[in-house]
């Protein structure tokens, strides 16, 4: 209809989505969300182009990608930063060049540079994950002190550091109280194969382990493989909790091998970032708050069938202007 037709002479919108690592399914969902938003906008007859960059977890590469996006004179940068500090100089350049910056999933250190951030607080999410783990341990009736293994991600990455903080926020008081004993704290670099190999060696040291908490699902799934390989039953002998709710992990929750995982909504993080950018650029929208939290859900067997409704479907951006 006439109403939906783009204004004559209006130039095409170009958004750049800078993803930290497309090798991780989690960020693929983020990209999917962004692409869903673009599709929706296109269906309304708005000409939008989305350029997706993959930084492969390398801050330097992401800096370069931001620089390149600036060179292409995009209208908005939707950044999923590899590191909150490392890309600041490049983001500053972007802002200087008059480009709208929105951060998604992870924020940057200098909050004045971006219009808004949409995502979850990783520290908060990690706290929820450990709390779920403790809850499971309590339910299991295992004797205290509970012996817990922690597998961390790549040191220095925001996700790894925040989740490490979240884990310790909850666990440290319990350790002091004598309820929990941390038997091993290793790095498995967010990788499934490392998760497997590291957990195998930990199990060789001691099989008296009650629970494993991992900074992402890939490592948790690797750990589950190791637990099964050791002739133990994940979920019963050893309780495993992951993070990110990637499809494999959701299956594992269904199968009872993983007690819980944390579902953020990468889909909505991508979706809201694009929608927000559109509102800002085209409609001059001013977001009411500079942090738009996406839903966080602890996925357990109880809600494993329904949680995706909450997180993987387009939802209106809170506070969005009317069409």
């Amino acid at each position: 209809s006439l109403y939906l037709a783009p204004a004559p002479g209006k130039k095409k919108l170009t958004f750049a989505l800078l993803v930290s690592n497309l090798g991780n399914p989690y960020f693929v969902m983020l990209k999917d969300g962004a692409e869903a938003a673009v599709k929706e906008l296109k269906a309304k007859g708005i000409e939008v182009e989305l350029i997706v960059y993959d930084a492969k977890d390398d801050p330097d590469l992401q800096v370069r990608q931001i620089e390149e996006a600036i060179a292409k004179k995009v209208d908005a940068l939707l950044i999923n930063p590899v590191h909150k500090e490392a890309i600041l100089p490049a983001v500053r350049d972007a802002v200087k060049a008059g480009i709208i910056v929105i951060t998604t999933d992870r924020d940057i250190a200098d909050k004045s540079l971006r219009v808004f951030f949409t995502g979850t607080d990783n520290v908060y999410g990690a706290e929820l994950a450990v709390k779920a783990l403790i809850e499971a341990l309590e339910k299991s009736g295992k004797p205290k002190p509970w012996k817990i293994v922690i597998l961390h991600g790549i040191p220095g990455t925001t996700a790894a550091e925040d989740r490490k903080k979240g884990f310790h926020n909850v666990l440290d008081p319990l350790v002091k109280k004598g309820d929990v004993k941390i038997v091993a704290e290793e790095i498995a670099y967010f990788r499934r194969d490392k998760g497997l190999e590291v957990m195998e060696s930990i199990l060789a040291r001691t099989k008296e382990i009650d629970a494993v908490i991992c900074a992402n699902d890939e490592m948790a799934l690797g750990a589950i493989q190791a637990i099964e390989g050791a002739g133990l039953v994940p979920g019963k002998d050893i309780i495993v909790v992951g993070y990110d709710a990637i499809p494999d992990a959701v299956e594992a929750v269904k199968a009872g091998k993983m007690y819980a995982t944390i579902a953020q909504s990468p889909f909505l993080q991508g979706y809201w970032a694009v929608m927000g950018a559109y509102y800002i650029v085209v409609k001059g929208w001013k977001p009411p708050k500079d942090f738009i939290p996406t839903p966080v859900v602890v996925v357990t067997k109880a809600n494993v069938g329904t949680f995706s409704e909450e997180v993987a479907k387009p939802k209106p951006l809170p506070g969005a202007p009317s069409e």
Partner: protein
Amino acid sequence: MGGRSNRSSHQATEILKAFWQHEVSKPFIAFLGLFIVSAVLSPAFLTPYNQRVLALQTAPLALLAFGESMIILMGSIDLSPGSTMALAGTVAAITFVHYKQPLAIAFLAGIAIGALVGFINGLLVTKAKIPSFVATLAALVAGRGMVLILTGGQPIVGLRAFGVLTMDIGPLPTMVWLMFFFTVLNFFLLTYTRWGRYIYAIGGNEEAVRCSGINADLIKLMTFTLAGCYYAIAGLMMDARLEVAYPWTGWGAELDAIASSVLGGIQLTGGVGSPIGPFFGAYVLTLITNVLILMGVNPFYQWVVKGIVLVVAAIALTRGLRYVK
């Protein structure tokens, strides 16, 4: 009596001497030394479970090391093992899961793709005359890209059936038997066949091999292809161990494969080294990581210790040279 025991002790000395002069003695001693040190340092080390884990972890790396060592013996180098194993694992998984082919076909498809990557590497080296370092660097990069394209960055699930490789046959899992089988096969191939002889000869003096009327290019092509097959089998093993085809399998594995070969006594200049050395090299490398975790060493310090052990092992292996490159 005295005479006899003297004689048998003399015989023992002879055997010991022969052993010392054998190429595999140094890597073996290095392995044994580390093994004993590990057993002393950590009580958990010698448990059957840990030994089993060690064998399982070593198996894929040993396969990579066998392939890599053949290439190094020819005086070339291969940076593609990691990407090739991932690609083969991915293709096998896709064949099995998406195309619903029987397991055997899936395995064959994986091995075929490994062979293909190796074959292309071989062509680049022999026909396009690109130094193996660059040719296989391109394969490393492009191969990983192919994996990401094929998987879309997502692990391919549903590989329970690949468990035939992790399943026990008698006391050990299939893939550990496979590792032993390939150790023997590799020994046999490199020691008793023409092909193996030519691999050593090319590494020793390629010019002489060519002047002798031997088709060195063909041998190189075959060897790169076979190495690709070895990497592919390692990829299938990783699939089986993870029960998924994980797109980042083998990321960085080229350095481990090369280090295993070198720790196994294969000289980087080519032509010298025992075919079973890389087996010990791979074991040593796996063992270091394992025992550091067993001992609960801070993960950051694990890196440093690993570097130091590498240096120590290398010194033990390369004594007596006037200078090195």
